């Protein structure tokens, strides 16, 4: 059983990695989905998966050795909820990026553009390029403005 699980987890991770490296946002999101499924399988395996064991309800009674360890399913449940929420958000953002930039290729997105990270509450109402005039009136060299 563990060998089968190991192969399944390996396939899911390999597929996820392949998809994440594709130049396409939707595939990246899908790759994340495969990853989270692979992780959940891994968690089941780590908890000692054995289908002969009973579900761990508090009222089952004395024979706790016949019960499954409840913690891994707990963790998986939480991880599923979280990966669903983050996946939904990620999909939304990916779609918005596509709408705004007209491409869904993350490598075609610019890393940095002029005006990135500008403080939105600043309104600039002075004429453009005040630096040079200021520099001239005060007799200060403004050449550094053009330095690279």
């Amino acid at each position, binding site marked *: 059983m563990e060998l089968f699980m190991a192969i399944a987890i390996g396939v899911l991770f390999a597929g996820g990695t392949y998809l*994440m490296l594709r130049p396409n*946002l939707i595939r*990246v999101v899908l790759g*994340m989905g495969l*990853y*989270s499924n692979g*992780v959940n399988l*891994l*968690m089941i*395996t*780590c*908890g*000692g998966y054995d289908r002969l064991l009973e579900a761990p309800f*508090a009222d089952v009674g004395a024979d*706790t*050795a016949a*019960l499954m*360890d409840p*913690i891994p399913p707990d*963790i998986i449940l*939480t*991880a599923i909820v*979280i*990966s669903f*929420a*983050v996946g939904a*958000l*990620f999909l939304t*953002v*990916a779609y*918005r*990026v596509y709408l*705004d*930039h007209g491409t869904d290729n*993350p490598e075609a*997105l*610019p*890393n*940095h*553009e002029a*005006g*990135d*990270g*500008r*403080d*939105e*509450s*600043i309104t*600039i109402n*002075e004429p453009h390029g*005040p*630096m040079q005039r*200021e*520099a001239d009136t*005060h007799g*200060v060299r*403004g050449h*550094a*403005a053009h*330095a690279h």
Partner: protein
Amino acid sequence: MTTLILPILIPLLTAMALAMLNGHYRLEKTVAVASVLGLVGYVFWLLFHVDANGIQSVVLGGWSAPFGIVFIADRLACIMLCLASGVGAVALLYSLFTVTEKQQKYFFFPLFNILLAGVNWAFITGDLFNLFVSYEVMLLGSYGMMMVGASKAQLRQTMKYIAINVLGGTFFVVGLGFIYATVGSLNMAELSQRTAALTGDQAKLFSAVTTVMLVVFALKTAAFPLFFWLPDSYPVVPPGINGFYAGLLTKVGVYSLLRVFVMVFRQPGHEFALNIILVMSGFTMLLGVLGAMCQWEIRKILSWHIISQVGYMVMGVGLVGVVVYTPDGSVDSVATEAVKTAAIVGTIFYIVHHIVVKSSLFLVGGIAERVAGTQDLKKMGGVLELAPGVAGLFLIASFSLAGMPPFSGFLSKFVLIKAGLAGGAFFVVTVAIITSFFTLYSMTKIWSYAFWRGRCRNHAGPGYRGMMLPTGVLIAFTVFMGVVAQPFVGLATRAAKEVQDPTAYIDSSFGRTAVAGGKFQAPNPKLETSSNLQIPNAELEPMGESKIAARAVTLIADQPGASN
């Protein structure tokens, strides 16, 4: 102590209330400020309470200790809570002056509170899985916060930030699975006990498993080689809040490294991971500052400096794994323990210093941007002339960052470098000192371009004076911490002792008052639980433990060449 849940509950409830108040701009601001000030009051009371009365803990959900979710506040956690809430309050007060109605419509204040709840949660939890959940809550808050306003750049950077952090979260769960499979618990106190008892091949297996967690925390910390995501994403965060990001988010990673790799993972040979951390720290410091030196925007320079500064804290964590030898080649255990204590003290002290100074630098950078109307160094100039007070604040903060006396940066670097010299880690110490010179150079660049040059506009931008007050509080704190260092070092030393010897932490986590040779004692009947439901854990526990131990043994026995 049931009120331990408040640092999470207050921001979460506030976030819900504020989400419903969306559109009432003034009311939203009032509620947010009132709530965060209440939170600050509570966590500072908690710090003094814990410092006087010892570690406090609460077990949620009616399950007793290793199964229920434990929230536990030792001195280190309390220090971090105070910093998170304090810097959070400052960032919030600051952003009252910068937030636009458009940003408020995008749930600026609720998202900030979710972020704060996640950060507090990460500091106070006593369970590794809960740490994962808190990371996710914090990250969801930070995704939202980064997108407030939904400009093109914000969306683009947030998408990358989400992708890298989802990957980190995936590996977090992988690491948790491996840890659970080898040791059979995720409760930090119980893990700490069990890892200390590991021997032989099991200890080696566990050391290998911990490297997965190392990757996760290094990614969150932005340590070399996993820092590439930070400098692009932090500059798009709204001003004010980016001070909070800069101060707290990567430090959650440093805190996790310190908590988990020093206190929880105590198997023989745990120095293995710490040595990797030490090597990473040298690269982190140097590459971070080199990255900063070639940038031309204030926020980008400061973002690169976060990476560089994180290197110092990570160096402190790595120094914990240093072993000191006597001249005849045997291990000098007294000196090794002394170096360990000094390294943890240095790390804690540096975290406090860094959170305050880094946040204040981002805040001052934001004010300078407001005054000059741009954050591009090539276009800025004359902030000294336009707003001398702002220049003064920047000067103090940047001197403190570079490590000039008498500010807190000098002392925190001094403690760390002393620990490094005592531990014989001369190479990393050299890198640390060189880095601090480069830091000074890079700060000089901002100073001479943005502040000292001729004026770039006739009048300072409007409304920057109000922003100076919350920033000034942080700057005053770094001066105070440098001049009156003794109480802070004392507190850091007491916190470090708790981390180094987790006996008190374990006892408190299990609701016991005394420990006898690491054996389980009957739980304290006065154990505080939030409901009356009691599951007989005595029956569940042996099942889990024996089965897992048996599995771990078979796993090791299957390896070719296994001796034990």
